[in-house]
């Protein structure tokens, strides 16, 4: 599905990511955890093409997308929910989703319709004519996920989907995310909250200071979480 090797990236002369390598298999839910400032968001931006890597490769389905511009890369089946959601606040919910519909990947194996995402998040039907900026944080997160799903991805990247949301909303959103696997979507969940990550991810990678420092194998979350020294060293308190 996705294979990253030897990735260096950063901003201007500042290199944030050093030799990052990992892979996501078909239908996997993989979590990327790490403390604030570990380079998680930089990695997400590099995966989407919002910053250009200075070294390394990003391979999507045997197709090298390292130099493919963002808007075209999204048509290879990658979709992303960026940090802070990055919706268009002045536009309505319906308009936000319509833009995804018209710019979506054509001919992928995934096919999400507006009716599908409305079933996942009924709020979309209720608030469809509201400007997005008038929605609560949780509602906005749901619109952001719906927008990403309408891009018809087979790989969905989510950057901190739980940040700033009430536990009840987080639970609802996690429920939906879990169900996406059955629709043929692999998931990269970028999370600071390792508890949430361990709840839904099969495997995980731990990031610190711009490097992947530890890999959590399937079924390995419990032993990682119980190793207090490691959790403290990599994730802070």
């Amino acid at each position, binding site marked *: 599905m996705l294979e990253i090797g030897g990735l260096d990236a950063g901003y201007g002369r500042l290199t944030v990511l050093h030799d990052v390598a990992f892979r996501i298999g078909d239908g996997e839910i993989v979590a990327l955890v790490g403390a604030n400032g570990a380079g998680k968001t930089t990695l997400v931006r590099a995966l989407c093409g919002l910053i250009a890597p200075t070294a390394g490769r990003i391979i999507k389905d045997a197709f090298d997308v390292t130099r493919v511009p963002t*808007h075209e890369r999204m048509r290879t089946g990658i979709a992303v929910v960026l940090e802070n959601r990055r919706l268009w606040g002045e536009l309505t919910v319906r308009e936000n989703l319509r833009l995804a519909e018209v710019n979506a990947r054509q001919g992928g194996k995934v096919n999400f319709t507006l009716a599908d995402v409305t079933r996942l998040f009924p709020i979309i039907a209720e608030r469809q004519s509201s400007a997005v900026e008038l929605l609560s944080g949780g509602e906005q997160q749901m619109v952001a996920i719906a927008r990403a799903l309408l891009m018809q991805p087979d790989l969905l990247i989510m950057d901190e989907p739980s940040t700033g949301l009430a536990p009840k909303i987080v639970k609802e959103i996690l429920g939906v995310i879990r169900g996406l696997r059955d629709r043929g979507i692999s998931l990269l969940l970028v999370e600071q909250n390792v508890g949430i990550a361990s709840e839904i991810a099969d495997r995980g990678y731990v990031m610190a200071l711009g490097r992947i420092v530890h890999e959590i194998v399937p079924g390995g979350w419990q032993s990682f979480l119980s190793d207090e020294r490691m959790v403290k060293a990599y994730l802070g308190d």
Partner: protein
Amino acid sequence: MFSSLVVQAILSGVTNGVIYALIGMGIAVIYKGSGVINAAQGEFSLIGAVVAVFAMKAAGFSYPIAFIAGAVFGILLGIVVDVVLVRPMVRRKADEDAFLLLTIGIAFAISAGVLFFAGRDYFTLPSIGSDGVAIVFDATIRYHAIWVIVACAAIVAALRFFYRKTSFGLAMMAASIDADGAATTGINVAAMRTATYGMGGLLGALAGLLVAPIVPISYYMGLVLTLKGFCAAMIGGLTNPMGAIVGGIILGLVESLAIVFIASAYKDVVAFSVLLVIMILVPQGILGRRGRKGG
């Protein structure tokens, strides 16, 4: 007699105002779409008018064809400005002030180019409709002026429709509101910025085409038009292209009423004083963020 003078002032104020509004909308559209204050907006008007004049006089095209040629040249000029000049600067991460300097340079270059190729003449286009006048409360208004107001209203309606109801217009809005969100939704953000400049060029050219039958156009007049349009955009709120309509009409009315009540020599003093007062009282413009939905 006095009241007919006031009516006359209001009519000509609104006519001038909608022209300022068009230029202001062009400035606001480009500012919103790319964060650049385009000091060459008035030159887009100059080019639109001059191209139409030459299409008629030198090439012998009919007025409607010449009008369309002027508008198309405006679009092309906007696109060229973005692709040839703005895009390489964006790639090198130029600062905002560098872009302002760039557009000032473009303004002077276009002005000098028109002087070189077209000379110092004053260019005028035929009136739309007939040369006649209508009488409103003892005041006269040229049929052309009525057409100008109608055309502006139609342009505003078309612009609203374009930005809110078409996928392309929505994508342009989306790219300007949040570029990363747009790129990750499959929108080509750079192409949308180019389209924004094309739209700015079109609005500028239309303003020039509509004003040339009222005020003869010459090579140096771009700057004046830019300043008036900039005032209109500032009064209405720079991030709100629809605000430029309100701003333009206020500016036009203040100018023409100043001629009646004070003296024509002081019209700019009064107009720009009003701008200063409005900027101090409501720095975000009269509409501020409200009504930004217009595009």
